[in-house]
């Protein structure tokens, strides 16, 4: 297996104590460098993370997923030898094999950032309502269309040092996905898509984004554009 010691997995964690240690230990087998950003969890997630070899950064208060990702990026880019960075979920819905493939593309191709997409091949495993919401999000995003991104709200992304240095997520909550698409466009990062499998476990479904949250995201995007 290729040496992955120049790769950093960035994992925002909010109340994931039941699964976090298992997910991290699995990921650590392939990727030795993981930073978990505990976003003010109240269920002992930090203690669970401490049982693994993952680095732990703890927000003193809950700030939101976007803020946690930004913290993780800032932590990881300070680490000596860090060349590639991955946004990875704490609840086990992302697959380590997909990350390996994405990193491989970053190493071999002329691209800065690889974004995962659920809309390649068979999509029947995606719950119907979720599919509708995601499709709507894509349709409403002119940037996403221009950049030929089919799944603008996919949380699995891998990127190189250029992107990590320039990344500055300002939406603390769930609005970071469209914000990153904006950054790709504005900073002219070379972007590619990678088909990935998202495993919708019961646990991740229960915590997933609701349709209503989509309204928040849309509103935040609209306001941000005006500034």
């Amino acid at each position, binding site marked *: 297996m290729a040496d992955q010691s120049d790769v950093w997995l960035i994992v925002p964690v909010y109340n994931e104590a039941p699964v976090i240690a298992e997910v991290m230990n699995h990921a650590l087998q392939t990727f*030795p460098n993981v930073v978990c950003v505990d976003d003010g969890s109240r269920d002992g997630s930090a203690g669970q993370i401490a049982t693994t070899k993952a680095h732990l950064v703890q*927000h003193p*208060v809950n700030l*939101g997923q976007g*803020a946690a990702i930004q*913290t993780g990026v800032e932590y990881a880019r*300070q680490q000596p030898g860090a060349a590639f960075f991955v946004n990875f979920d704490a609840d086990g819905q992302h697959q380590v094999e997909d990350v390996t493939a994405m990193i491989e593309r970053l190493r071999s191709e002329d691209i800065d950032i690889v974004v995962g997409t659920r809309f390649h091949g068979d999509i029947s495993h995606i719950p119907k309502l979720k599919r509708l919401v995601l499709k709507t999000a894509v349709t409403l995003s002119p940037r996403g269309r221009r950049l030929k991104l089919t799944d603008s709200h996919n949380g699995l992304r891998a990127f190189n040092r250029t992107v990590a240095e320039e990344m500055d997520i300002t939406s603390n909550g769930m609005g970071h996905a469209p914000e990153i698409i904006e950054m790709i466009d504005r900073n002219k990062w070379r972007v590619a898509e990678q088909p990935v499998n998202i495993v919708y476990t019961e646990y991740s479904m229960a915590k997933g984004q609701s349709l209503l949250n989509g309204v928040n995201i849309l509103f935040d995007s609209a*306001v941000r554009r005006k500034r």
Partner: protein
Amino acid sequence: MAIKIILILAVLALLIFVLRSHGTNRGGAYVKIGMALFMVFAVYAVIRPDDVTWLAGQVGVGRGTDLLLYLLVVGIGFFAISTYLRFKEIELRYARLARAIALEQAARREENRPVSPDTASN
């Protein structure tokens, strides 16, 4: 007559309050000018309501009260948006502060962490 005095005093008190409390916002000066004009208009409207009705007629609104109501709606909308933006900005600063604390604590924790074979190799 008493109501006019009360309204004028209330408006003046509000004006002073807004001017003194609306701190260091960038667009703050414009907000203050807008507020001042609005207050002057409010005082004028209290003193000469017929003029407001006349003005309302000129701009195609039935009564002076309706005109005021419309202005109020616009004012509240503006206020809501500027407050929202202000909150966003404060939220961002707050996040950066919390992040700085988190990163510093994490760096200290890593220093004290026993060096295992895996981490030493990087």
